[in-house]
């Protein structure tokens, strides 16, 4: 019942589709799903929230929680400079408890992009690790399910880097190729973050090929040590990912192989997710995952399935409902019913 009250409240707060009215040229304006903009100052304030209803690992019934409340701040003081920050309240409010706000508050991202040329960008600061696809678009309003594939979670690789990244975009006929190389020194550079997971140091790269014909393929590699175990051997992780979209249909897949020589072990796995449009703005979603090896020091050999529906009545809003046929280890991927309301504002 509380979930449905939350849904009703979100729909009331959303306003009507008329909120998409086009803005004046230079006056500050708000656009639903695109934030508040001050064009003369090249400044934008926005964000998103995610309300999640999920089965906790202690099997004591579902709990409703404000899973994420993120605030974006974008500022371009110069044509070649682009500042971005995301501050998040993570798992702060739930029907089970209200967490300490100091523990819930995190600087999720904080970086500056320096546009060295038309096709070359240098990024400095804290940003999402460019391994695979899910991690760089993991915000709840952008994904099709309330649950996250195991091969993309923070026990496989840290979701954030603290350091510098160089991106070069190349063009071959009608195709874009992006090449990224980066270096991380999180142990010395991490911005305000209460998470205990993360890199100690890391070095890696990614190549993404974007065809003109609706599909993309990417290759990622990262060599890293973890913050919690800096004295253990370094890990090597190799990833490959694929995305295809057309006429509302979508297929996305990622596979990883992580290896190290000590108790951290090795693991490999993949997921394959498909989306199909149903009636107006309703979509069917299905995902299969497999993970085998040592996942955060726990031996795993798990097959996971997710089947659900997503409703996108308006561009910034998505309502999801799914059942996860979970892993043997409940803490990684519990079985049960998940639902969420996610919205860009």
């Amino acid at each position, binding site marked *: 019942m509380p979930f449905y009250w939350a849904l009703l409240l979100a729909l009331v707060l959303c306003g009507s589709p008329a909120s998409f009215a086009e803005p004046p040229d230079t006056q500050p304006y708000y656009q639903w799903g695109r934030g508040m903009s001050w064009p003369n100052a090249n400044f934008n304030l926005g964000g998103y929230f995610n309300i999640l209803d999920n089965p906790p690992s202690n099997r004591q019934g579902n709990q409703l929680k404000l899973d994420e409340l993120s605030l974006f701040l974008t500022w371009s003081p110069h044509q070649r400079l682009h500042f971005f920050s995301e501050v998040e309240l993570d798992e702060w409010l739930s029907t089970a408890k209200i967490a300490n706000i100091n523990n819930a508050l995190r600087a999720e991202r904080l970086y500056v992009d320096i546009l060295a040329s038309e096709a070359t960008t240098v990024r400095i600061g804290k940003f999402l690790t460019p391994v695979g696809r899910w991690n760089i678009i993991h915000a709840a309003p952008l994904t099709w399910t309330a649950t996250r594939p195991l091969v993309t979670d923070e026990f496989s690789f840290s979701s954030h880097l603290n350091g510098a990244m160089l991106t070069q975009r190349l063009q071959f006929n*009608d195709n874009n190729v992006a090449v990224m190389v980066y270096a991380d020194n999180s142990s010395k550079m991490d911005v305000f973050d209460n998470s205990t997971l993360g890199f100690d140091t890391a070095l890696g790269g990614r190549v993404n090929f974007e065809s*003109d014909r609706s599909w993309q393929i990417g290759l990622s590699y990262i060599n890293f040590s973890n913050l919690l175990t800096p004295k253990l051997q370094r890990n090597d992780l190799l990833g490959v990912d694929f995305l295809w979209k057309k006429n509302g249909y979508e297929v996305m897949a990622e596979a990883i192989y992580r290896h190290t020589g000590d108790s951290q072990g090795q693991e490999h796995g993949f997921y394959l997710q498909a989306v199909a449009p149903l009636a107006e703005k309703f979509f069917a979603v299905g995902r299969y995952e497999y993970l085998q090896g040592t996942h955060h020091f726990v031996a795993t050999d798990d097959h996971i399935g997710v089947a659900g529906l997503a409703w996108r009545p308006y561009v910034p809003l998505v309502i999801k409902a799914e059942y996860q046929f979970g892993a043997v280890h409940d803490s990684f991927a519990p079985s049960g019913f998940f639902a969420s309301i996610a919205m860009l504002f």
Partner: protein
Amino acid sequence: MAKRILALALALNVASASADELLVITGLDEPKANLNRKQLENIFLRKSLINNNGVGWIPLNLPPDNPLRVAFSETLLKLPPNILEAYWNEQYFNGISPPHVLASEEAVIRFVSTTPGAIGYILPCHLDKRVKVLVNLPTVHLLKNLCQ
């Protein structure tokens, strides 16, 4: 005299034959740029944020239900405006806003003619001396009836 009449006839013929195309325009002071289709696409998808001179690109759109906007989006970006909203959701997550939207071609011409880096699109029949053509973009959409 005969040569002048022939030249005029050819010009009129070219003008009427080019009615089903869009003109991508910039200000008169903008440096000449030879942009291919992919480069133009990258500008309007905000993947390319500055030009080779370090000036920020300011791409402009018409309202999403404007036939010219639909034609431009389907011709250059191969998707209608409403389908591209999912792409702009992802860009918003990365701090990138979609192109500014102006209400009319006249508003586009005024903005482009006075703003460095601005780039927009209009019909050939609305072209005037305030702006210059960067790229001619042929389209399968029938747009002649929009010329008034």
